[in-house]
């Protein structure tokens, strides 16, 4: 029964509440990022600055993974960029709900995070920007502080392995991947092909190249889809958050 005392679903306060829950999920991932980056030889300050200015779990992990495997900056940036490309349609989706001149909307769009974006959706293509701001405002310090903790307490590789912490990143990628199955047509086909493609490429090409070329799986499946008939047309905004779960900061 909903009465006049029902708590509002949108606005700063509801956004902050959502953000606290999301922060609990992103914090351990941030700790793991800080620890792994330190173990792989990233300078502590650079690791923390990375979390502060990039604020994107998927992108940061892609960058770290590629660079740790010896890929150059262009390849590592390419892999990280492809992961973060999903923010493009998410930004398009919220564009009509953001107020102010273009530069102000561009700044406001920086608060787009997967969980915040989803929490701000009001239906009918509208988003509540205060909810999104509130949810993101809590996650940013959690992400940075988690990274600091990971850097400071960076456990040695043997301890990382015995504590199962080396499962955190593949596990994180796995849940994001599974989340994408819910919203992206033929995602399972795309992922299966990408697994085969990447697995094979890792034997003959550098890691960064393998990651970048895994994106070809999407094109191959989409080409096959077009040849066998269009099926469901792509819906702008549909599944824009796919590939990232509520636990990913950005």
């Amino acid at each position: 029964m909903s009465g006049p005392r029902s708590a509002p679903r949108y606005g700063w306060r509801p956004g902050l509440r959502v953000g606290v829950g999301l922060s609990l999920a992103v914090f351990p991932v941030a700790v793991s990022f800080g620890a792994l980056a330190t173990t792989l030889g990233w300078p502590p300050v650079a690791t923390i600055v990375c979390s502060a200015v990039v604020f994107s779990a998927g992108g940061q992990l892609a960058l770290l993974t590629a660079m740790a495997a010896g890929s150059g900056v262009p390849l590592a940036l390419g892999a990280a960029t492809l992961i973060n490309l999903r923010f493009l349609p998410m930004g398009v989706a919220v564009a009509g709900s953001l107020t102010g001149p273009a530069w102000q909307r561009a700044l406001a769009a920086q608060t787009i995070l997967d969980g915040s974006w989803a929490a701000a959706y009001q239906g009918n293509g509208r988003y509540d920007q205060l909810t999104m701001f509130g949810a993101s405002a809590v996650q940013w310090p959690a992400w940075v502080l988690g990274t600091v903790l990971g850097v400071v307490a960076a456990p040695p590789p043997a301890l990382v392995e015995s504590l199962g912490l080396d499962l955190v990143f593949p596990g994180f990628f796995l849940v994001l991947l599974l989340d994408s199955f819910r919203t992206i047509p033929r995602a399972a086909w795309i992922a299966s092909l990408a697994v085969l493609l990447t697995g094979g490429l890792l034997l003959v090409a550098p890691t960064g190249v393998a990651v970048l070329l895994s994106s070809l799986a999407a094109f191959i499946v989409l080409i096959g889809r077009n040849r066998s008939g269009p099926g469901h047309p792509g819906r702008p905004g549909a599944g824009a958050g796919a590939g990232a779960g509520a636990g990913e900061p950005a």
Partner: protein
Amino acid sequence: MNIWIAIAGLAVINFVIKATGPALLGDRALPPHVSLIVHSMAPALLAGLLIVQILGQDWRDFDWTLLPGLAVIGVLWLLGRSQIACIVAGVIVCIVIRALV
């Protein structure tokens, strides 16, 4: 130095990706085929990153003890558990497996 260049580059790219829609497009939507391609990149890249994490260059990093943990994560995801619950359970299974072998 390369690390700093990569961090700065990714920060700028991330800013531009997020800002493009609200700053330039306003209320207009992406063309459907462009939107579909952008969406479809996510599962491909995530699967690629997953495999890289599991296998490593030339498959040198493969460690079978990760697999039971990943399997548990998949099962719990199917049961609708939260992202963090899935990962924590997977880590626990991984610890147990490694303690046993």
